[in-house]
């Protein structure tokens, strides 16, 4: 009888515990399920490049060329460039690009250490649409 009562208490306690665990994990599950889908670039073509090669620590020029569906340059966009190491916890670098020809945007980006980098182009078109493009820059060399 005593053992039965104890087991009953244990069972009730474990049920309460499992309830607490499920409640605790619920926000994470719900939150991830609600994630917004990423924006798409639609009919915009983005051609990105970097120079000089090979990429070394220091300032490099990153460029992107924006064209529409009819291959016409897209002028008047605002392009911000962000460089991140692929290791978390490292300082990102930022630069604003200037339009040196219609649809052609260039920015000097300071690579602060060797290794694999990812360059992000945050593009805001003149009509307010926002587009993002990622360029992998592998193996930036130390000087």
């Amino acid at each position: 009888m005593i053992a039965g009562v104890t087991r009953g208490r244990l069972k009730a306690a474990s049920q309460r515990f499992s309830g607490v665990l499920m409640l605790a994990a619920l926000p994470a599950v719900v939150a991830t399920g609600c994630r917004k889908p990423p924006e798409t670039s639609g009919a915009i073509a983005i051609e990105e490049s970097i120079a000089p090669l090979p990429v070394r620590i220091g300032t490099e020029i990153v460029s992107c060329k924006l064209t529409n569906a009819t291959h016409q340059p897209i002028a008047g966009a605002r392009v911000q460039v962000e460089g991140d190491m692929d290791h978390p916890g490292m300082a990102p670098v930022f630069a604003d690009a200037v339009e040196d020809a219609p649809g052609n945007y260039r920015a000097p980006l300071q690579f602060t250490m060797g290794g694999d980098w990812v360059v992000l182009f945050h593009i805001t078109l003149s009509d307010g649409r926002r587009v993002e493009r990622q360029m992998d820059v592998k193996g930036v060399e130390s000087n």
Partner: protein
Amino acid sequence: MSKPPVVLFSAAEQEGHAGEEEFLEAQPFDLLAVPVIGPLLRWRHSRTLLQIPLFVLSMVMILEGLLGPTLSPKNLATVLTWVHFRGVLVLAILCAGNLFCFSCPFMLARNFMRKWIHPRFTWPRRLRNKWLSIALFVGVLFGYELFGLWASPWLTAWVILGYFAAILIVDGLFKHGAFCKYVCPIGQFNFIASTASPLEVAVRDQEVCDSCQTRDCIRGRREPASPLVVLQRGCELALFQPAKVGNMDCTFCLDCVHACPHDNVGILSRLPAGELMSDPLRSGIGRFSRRNDIAALALVFCFGALMNAFGMVSPVYTAESWLERTLHFHSRAGALGILFTAVILVEPAILLGAAAWITRAWAGVKSGWLAIAVRYAYALSPLGFGMWLAHYGFHFFTGLYTIVPVTQNAFAELGWPILGDPRWTLVGLPKTVVEPIEFGFLLLGLAGSLLVAWGLAQDDAEQHPLRAFAPWGVLCVILFVCCVWLMTQPMDMRATMLAG
């Protein structure tokens, strides 16, 4: 209750250490006697209280890793795992003890499972050592470099998931704490690192244990009317408190604290790394000098710290490229495998073999060279810990604030930007501040290793302790110089595979 001083050395060892007597006579600090913290830790559910938030965080990291941003610096899974978790873990071990094992989220899942699934098997006798966990530890270090785990939230999430699966399978099949004691690579890292911690779970009064009839600290307490019902577990890692020495194999679970009917187990202060200077019979372990596997763990811990840092600087790629060209490897695995073999196997074998041979020949120590190497291998673990601290501390301090924009971004991506726009410019402490801290950790490690080696040399060669110490002192200094060289190299982190 009387609280005699904690004896760190035998009576014979204390001779000639008159200056240390005052220290040895001092009443140890007991964390369980501290207001608020003590009662909280004594509370039976204190461990669960810390495990639940870490478990929830693990779930968030898995989901974010699998479904969140693919860019590593913007994902909670990679930022928390490779910047904050590692840093907090080593700093907690340095300042207190093995607090990660105490709050281990994997154990929460395992304890939950064991409410329904009761393991039937005992861990195989042949595997009751550290060799399997050493292989897994090396495997984790190798996989980290080969797959560039730091760069992949997706792979990081799978590593966490794999960990949960492994503990549920192992501890679902095998009784007691088989996973923690014989399998878990993080646990082994924590065990060997925490030999340098300032706190340990230990008995307060040996006389109380001498008169104890029940031995609840290891057997646990059961329902008197129904012996199958466990009211309180005893130590699952087979550490019998009265004979327990140091932090090796101790997960700080505090089961012994809760089980002891005499309230005779505390979290006491001690001399960091002091447990490495002597070689008593340790409960659940035996003598360190007869445990080649634990000595190997100490070496992997030390040389693995060098290899792990070496994988993040420019020269490693020069070496890999040369190996790939020379030996015509078509993948990075071959060159990396050779580097790992050289640093973790060949280098320690040569260095320790030479130091042991010199100790034997010059100081007249009668043991064989392997026995000497095993005995002094433990002396390298404080230096190894210093290197882990310097490396992980660097990432932690320089990336300290990155958790802020990553969390802001996670909320913003959910369409719930309550924390505002991500402030990506928040990074961490400047390198000029962090670098002196790094060198401080390395110096601390060197000092610890030299002290342990000196303590062992004094025991081994009473006539010529300096001769016994010299080769190990030189070895420690050589390794220290290597550590300093590595920490001053330009960082160069390249992932070979970007999954997800």
